[in-house]
């Protein structure tokens, strides 16, 4: 888990709220129509937000890649 990082690309985010609504750990929120990390410490890097983001604006990056 330590070698994974959650990355957000605000330029592509359309603020639909899907990632925040279905995050199992309430890590995300929509602030001024963009996704924001509100509770990064709880993120389990499950990648569900990446799978369901229609705009590819949030994803898990593996270190060394």
């Amino acid at each position, binding site marked *: 888990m330590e070698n994974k990082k959650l*990355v957000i*690309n605000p*330029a*592509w985010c*359309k*603020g*639909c*709220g*899907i990632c925040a*609504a*279905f995050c199992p750990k309430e890590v995300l929120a929509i602030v001024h129509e963009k996704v924001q990390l509100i509770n990064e410490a709880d993120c389990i890097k499950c990648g569900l937000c*990446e*799978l*369901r*983001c*229609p*705009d*590819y*604006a949030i*994803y*898990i*990056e593996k270190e060394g*890649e």
Partner: protein
Amino acid sequence: MPSKLIEKTMRVNRLPHIWCPGCGHGILMRDVAQAIENCGLDPDKVVIVSGIGCSSRAAGYMNYNTLHTTHGRAIAFATGVKLANPELTVIVITGDGDATAIGGNHLIHACRRNIDLTVVVFNNNIYGMTGGQYSPTTPHGEKGTTAPYGNIDYNFDIPKLAESAGATYTARGTAFHVPQMIKLIENGIKHHGFSLIEGLSVCPTYYGRKNKKGSAVDMYNWQKENCIDAAKAQKMSAEELEGKILTGEMSRCEKPEYTDMYMEIIRKCGGDK
């Protein structure tokens, strides 16, 4: 700075895409890309063919050989590509209107031939691009700009339609249930014959607004609650299944494939010499 998958499979300079906030098409397009990756295909040997409609914009974004064709004719173009060069993997991305109304005849006849195409229907239950007219998959009773008092047509069940017309692999997934959808597309690509995978999409802008379905998130919650894996459904009672939509592999069989039979005729007649 996109993810590795997006960087590899999409034309990143064309992103963000044109689809509305929360539209299921973006999720389904990523599923197609992930399925192609999972199959380990050479991108140079993959062709994406689309028709017209919101769904069909996908061909502009995906970084493969792509063909954005005319309304309803994606399967006809794809048939030509496959016959000319059977070693290519040909994937059609189409919508409910494009595939079952304007292109309905192309669909049933391609099914009948069992030609090795993989057709992924992004079903948003409406004509989104042209402003919300009802389509052959708008559920009975639901509204569109052309059905302001409710649609009196009965809607198609697309996998059933394809199966009865001769498709040898049919399946249904949703935008919400991502790993299942990726697997269904992957299996469709691997299947040698005509494959049809319906992907239930989410159109918050037209279908959602016209039918008071709430926000995009509400519409995904609806899919989460109401779309049930067919394997799981076997353990549920008739009451529990009332109004539910079944997902998963719907049918599969083996039958000689069209381009194989066509090449065989060419060989028999000495056309390969």
